[in-house]
């Protein structure tokens, strides 16, 4: 589903190379995790895939079901089925959460040539999905993420994902700032969305999220590359021993 080949990215503003040839393929129905030390390029990868400004792709490709993503605007990528759950969800005072969600959903439907939903149809869908994430009517009415706790913000991200039903979901450190209960809620929300025609890329520092969202494949990223891939046990290895050993042996293999 998602195929990244030889992706090289640097910052636009300064001459700093962040991604140095990322190769990654996430087939439909699978959950892949990316782990790696700070500064290895994990978040950059998620931003580049979703189309944030400020990055320059100097080489490589990234396709979603064969369609090249990198030339598209963020909204076109979203309509194509890509979704990024933000590490730091943005607070937008003055824009109601429901207005935001409905505008987004209908914009995507329109872009795909589907009928837009009216207010009643939309509300019905949102209420059901919000309930599963323990998001009450009050939270839906408030401005987007304004005054939300860390856990509420992350649950709101998953709600957006559940409503927009993207095919390719990228979760950028969704576990950061979550307590155990919130992590369970969020994980259950993600797991409920797992399906044969949907794929996930879960970026995380810690193995504990992967206890709840069990990945098919774990990738280790370091210095702008995927240096090692393996099964779920790789996450456990990182948790117990840190990155040093893995990076060292990966370095030897690369050499």
């Amino acid at each position, binding site marked *: 589903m998602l195929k990244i080949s030889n992706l090289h990215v640097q910052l636009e503003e300064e001459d700093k190379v962040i991604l140095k040839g990322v190769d990654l393929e996430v087939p439909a129905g699978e959950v892949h995790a990316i782990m790696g030390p700070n500064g290895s390029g994990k978040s950059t990868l998620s931003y580049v895939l979703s189309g944030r*400004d400020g990055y320059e792709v100097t080489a490589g490709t990234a396709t979603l079901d064969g369609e090249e993503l990198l030339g598209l605007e963020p909204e076109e990528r979203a309509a194509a089925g890509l979704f990024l759950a933000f590490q730091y969800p943005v607070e937008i005072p003055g824009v109601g959460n429901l*207005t935001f969600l409905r505008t987004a959903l209908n914009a995507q439907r329109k872009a795909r040539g589907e009928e837009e939903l009216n207010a009643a149809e939309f509300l019905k869908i949102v209420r059901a999905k919000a309930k599963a994430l323990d998001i009450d009517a009050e939270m839906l009415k408030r401005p987007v993420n304004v005054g939300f706790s860390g856990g509420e913000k992350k649950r709101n991200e998953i709600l*957006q994902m559940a409503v927009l039903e993207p095919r390719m979901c990228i979760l950028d450190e969704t576990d950061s700032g979550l307590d155990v209960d919130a992590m369970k809620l969020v994980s259950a929300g993600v797991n409920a969305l797992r399906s044969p025609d949907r794929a996930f890329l879960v970026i995380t520092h810690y193995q504990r999220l992967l206890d709840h969202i069990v990945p098919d494949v774990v990738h280790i990223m370091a210095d702008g590359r995927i240096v090692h891939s393996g099964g779920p046990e790789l996450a456990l290895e990182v948790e117990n021993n840190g990155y040093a050993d893995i990076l060292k042996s990966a370095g030897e293999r690369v050499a």
Partner: protein
Amino acid sequence: MAVPALKLDAAGGLLAAWPEPAGEAQWARAARSQAERWLRERGAPARRDEYWRYTDPTSLTVEPAPEAALLATDEVPVFQTRETHRLVFVDGVFSPEASTPLEIAGVEIVPLREALAADIHWVRDIFGQIEAAGQVPVERPLAALNTARAVEGCAIRVTGVASRPIHFVYRRAAADADALIHHVIRLDAGADLTVLESAAGAARLNTVMEVEIADRAALHHVRTQGRDHQRRAVTGLFARLATESRLKSFTLTVNGRLTRNEAFVEMRGDNASAHVAGACVGDGDFHHDDTVFVTHAAVGCESRQVFKKVLRGSAVGVFQGKILVRPVAQQTDGYQISQALLLDEAAQFLAKPELEIYADDVKCSHGSTSGAVDETSLFYLTSRGIPKKTAEELLILAFLDEAIAEVEDEGLADELRDRLAAWLARRR
């Protein structure tokens, strides 16, 4: 310091352009000549004046008024969907045929011309008086012109809770119309009234609204200034508030070559509350100036000034806002915010926030900012599939909402939001 001859000449020119009102009561004549004398002595506004540095008054003082093309639109006029008492002015002239009959329960409405010819004590106590009090310390020569010459407008007295809003509709017919409109509004103790104003009114519109709000009374004022691109307007809201009374004034301005909205609000009774707010959206040949002066002259009063401007092209926004706290005004709560969203490099925002405080037990805050649309927010919205233009509009509406939220009536506030959304979408 001698007043420059140019200012005096311009004042003479403005006064000469309008016939001297005739057949009025002695008290009305006295108020007129007081205003005329003031204007002749102080002169018309000029760029060198302290409060006209950011706004060139030339097109407001030149005779004849510059022409302004009429707006061609098939849009349903604002506030038409609700039940209001409509008072229609065409190019600044009251049109009884187009208006609702003047009878309304709990409200007395008299055309200004009639009110000034009769002996109506409550009009006498207000007409030209609140405006004159508002000339110090900041001169408002164009309001003085209005008091000296305006014969159009209404005198309104509310004794209870008005059953419907009063809606002043300012229609345009001629491309070169110059108009003076003067309203006198008196709210008796405990009264409650909503006053709506809509549309551009004239090529050059000069309005004054003098308002006396007695104990525990409340005035809600909601105004939209039309969408005409070339019109000019100078408005003056002069309000005096008694104990526990409330004023809420909000103005929405979209387009217009030049707008100067002045407000002078004095809280004279304890625990009064005054909110003056404005939202404006302009592109290109657009100059919008809010000049607001709020005086706390009693104990425990609260005031808010909230002004938001969205500017594009060479559009210019100006905010001059002052909170004056007199020595007697302990436990004052004053707040002032002015913000501009600059959609490109050519747009400009000039702000002069002022606090002048002579009491010691006072809470006053003010802030003024200008900036571009937040890129992070824009990315967040677009990453959810919202097209960039729509996302930008959402953020613009969100930015303006703190001002619109000052409109207490949710139905009115929502109509303003819907209008704005539709008008912004037209620009795509």
